[in-house]
């Protein structure tokens, strides 16, 4: 972030801490996309993600006085967002996350016909320009929701939001080593899930997986 933008943000934060709603709303405008994205990728439902986003900003406004301006506001805000998301997930999912070994047919919503239609699209996709079909997006989203919460948060913050390990460590209040291992395990687990649906993966991606 440019220096002036950071200074602007510090000013907005200070004003928000004194109860200035308009200043806080400037922060909302700046970060609502990030918060909504995290909530949606965490939870998979747009309406719920919207609720969680609103709750996050309400909670953040209330908690502004306890934000010590030294650290990153984004990390602090995303901490609230991921906490809210995890709380919501835990309230609605009492059962432990399925292990990959126990994936049943009901977890694979795509019939062979649906899959073959995707294969026939003939998209020869370059890794750098991967445009994902709706179905593939849905599978990735499902794969994210299969991750244990701590790995899910880490992967989403890193690979969806682009936070650095350091910032993720602040957001999750853990160490760099923990961040690294959660990201790694999350990616591996997600990869394994995607391989169960390898037919959905774009062209040259599938070639590699066939080697296994």
């Amino acid at each position, binding site marked *: 972030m440019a220096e002036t933008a950071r200074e602007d943000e510090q000013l907005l934060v200070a004003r928000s801490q004194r109860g200035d709603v308009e200043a806080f709303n400037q922060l909302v405008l700046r970060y609502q996309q990030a918060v*909504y994205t995290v909530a949606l990728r965490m939870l998979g439902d747009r309406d719920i993600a919207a609720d969680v986003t609103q709750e996050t900003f309400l909670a953040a406004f209330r908690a502004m006085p*306890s934000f010590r301006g030294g650290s990153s506001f984004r990390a602090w805000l995303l901490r609230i967002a991921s906490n809210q998301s995890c709380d919501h997930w835990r309230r609605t999912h009492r059962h432990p996350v399925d292990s990959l070994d126990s994936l049943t047919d009901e977890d694979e919503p795509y019939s062979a016909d649906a899959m073959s239609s995707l294969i026939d699209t003939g998209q020869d996709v370059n890794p750098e320009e991967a445009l994902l079909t709706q179905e593939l997006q849905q599978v990735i989203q499902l794969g994210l929701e299969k991750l244990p919460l701590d790995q899910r948060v880490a992967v989403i913050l890193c690979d969806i939001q682009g936070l650095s390990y350091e910032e993720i460590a602040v957001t999750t209040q853990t160490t760099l080593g923990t961040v690294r291992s959660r990201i*790694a395990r999350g990616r591996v687990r997600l990869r394994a899930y995607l391989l169960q649906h390898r037919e959905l993966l774009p062209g040259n991606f599938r070639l590699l997986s066939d080697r296994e």
Partner: protein
Amino acid sequence: MTQQEHLTTGQLSAFLDKQLSPQEQAFFDAHLQSCQHCQFELAELRRTVVLLHAMPQPQLPRSFTLPTTVQPAQIRAALPQTAPARQRHVLRSTMRAVSSIAVVIGLIFILSGLLANVHLGVGGGATSTSSSPVFNSSNGNTTGSSQVPQANVNTPGAIETPLIHNPQTSTPTASKLSPTPKATPTARATVKNGGAVEPPVLPPALDLGQPAGRLSLGALLLLLSIIGLVLTRRRYRRFH
């Protein structure tokens, strides 16, 4: 395959994020160039990351700005908290500070009460503490206490002799002095004024001059302060 260990998924993953330490990086480069297994694993991981990066940014359904007319009261109503955040914060900090001090004072009292019992043995009265006057546990010393008949009474805990000199503004209720159940029959010597404090005569459980009093008061203070600290602990989002 060489005898080297393969690269861990943590290392492969961190490599993709440029998070390897220089040492790790050196080992990584050396190993990777000759290890097909790790090259494959790396490619697999990279693929997954690319897919994640390719996920589109979801469209915002609406703006989440708070209404500018929102009053703290409205937010209070919408959320479980009840006090304006700032005031609550200050109140909380004050409560915590007071509770912390109370913990310390409580512990001091308890310790002095316990130590007094240690020193006490059979003979004297209470030991000196920072909060109680200095006693000379001399038996039958009635010097200076002759002015006040009550000084001869066996009241090891009561600090009646300072009443004679009355150095401080404390209860001149010499007439209220009464013997305490304490067994040690000591009269208070005329103590120097320094440290003379005159609390009203209290039952031993509350009398700060007595070890039992300090002990119980200290315990009470400790209990209350711990409750205070627990109640004012930061309830903000615990993280898993």
